[in-house]
């Protein structure tokens, strides 16, 4: 079981770094959502089911929805400007 935890933790790190590197907002948001979901799994491993359920509902649920609506509002969803011409 401990190796699963190592893999998940490594995944978190990769997510954090890749969000820094990528220029595309949509991609970074999707990575963020994945990060939140993995975080909630990690909290299950840390024996905190209260946190896991909350993080799954908030981080991967509502916060992501808010982010995506914001992107829609500012018109970056289609990502015309950021991509390399």
């Amino acid at each position: 079981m401990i190796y699963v935890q190592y893999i998940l933790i490594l995944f978190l790190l990769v997510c954090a770094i890749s969000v820094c590197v990528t220029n595309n907002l949509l991609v970074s948001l999707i990575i963020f959502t994945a990060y939140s979901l993995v975080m909630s799994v990690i909290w299950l491993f840390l024996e905190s089911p209260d946190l896991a359920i909350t993080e799954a509902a908030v981080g991967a649920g509502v916060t992501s929805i808010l982010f995506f609506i914001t992107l829609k509002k500012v018109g970056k969803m289609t990502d015309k400007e950021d991509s390399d011409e």
Partner: protein
Amino acid sequence: MNKIFKSLNDFVNGVQDEKENVHLKHKNKKHHEKVLTERIEDIVESGENKGFNKFYNVIAILLACVIIACMIYTVSFLPSFGDPTNPANNEVVQAYIENGIRDTGAVNFVAGMILNYRAFDTLGESTVLFIAATTVIILLFKHKTKEEEKAEQLEEAKYEDKHDLILRHGALIVVPATLVFGVYVLFNGHLSPGGGFSGGTIMGAALILYNSAFGDNSTKTFFNYGIHKVIKISALSFYALSQLYSFITGANLIESIIPNGIAGNLISSGLILPLNICVGFEVACTMFGFYSLFDREEI
């Protein structure tokens, strides 16, 4: 350079458009000139800034490394992970677990801790959420006149049938299930993982799904700005009042009249269940409010 050409191109296009509108010629030309000069200024600036930007990035990486190095050096001194003899596992934890059921009646020690022992923090927490909802209302809420509202409803009614079929049929199954699950999590906060905040968020998510599947009008039949306000204010004020009661009786050593019930039953553990319900409804309203304010600037 590419960008300069592009903006020049835009400018030319703008001039061509302008020829079609002869009336606004003079004004528009000036406007376009202004935009062009500003754009070129921007581009020049950003060109100058390119070196600076690289410098900035280097600084960012360096700063990150310094912070991380310092903190990691700190971490190497900290107590080991998972060790039962760590300083954090002290008499406070022991008391929470040993006396938790007797003091609070909650089988979930975390719920007992945050809603009974350390209730003052949690009152602050729900106030933070309330303030955030208010700030979002300040930033995004638009007061609409009745005519505008009517026009919008008509507009909405046009698209009513064109909502995605799969989404609607899926939502018919998923929404009740999510809602029931949210209510379960909410009401069993003192018995199982969960509680007011997570249950409320799940209920809010169900509402959001319902709204995006069935449109605005059908949501408005049972949920509008007035109801949102009433639920939020009454839930929070009930919270604050019950805390006032519990603080004052506690500090003056008066026995609280609220019974703890039989531990393990649904209706037990004193104030925890009502507080969970209050927090849950407030959170559900707030989450749906966030969504609908971001999406349509109204509730």
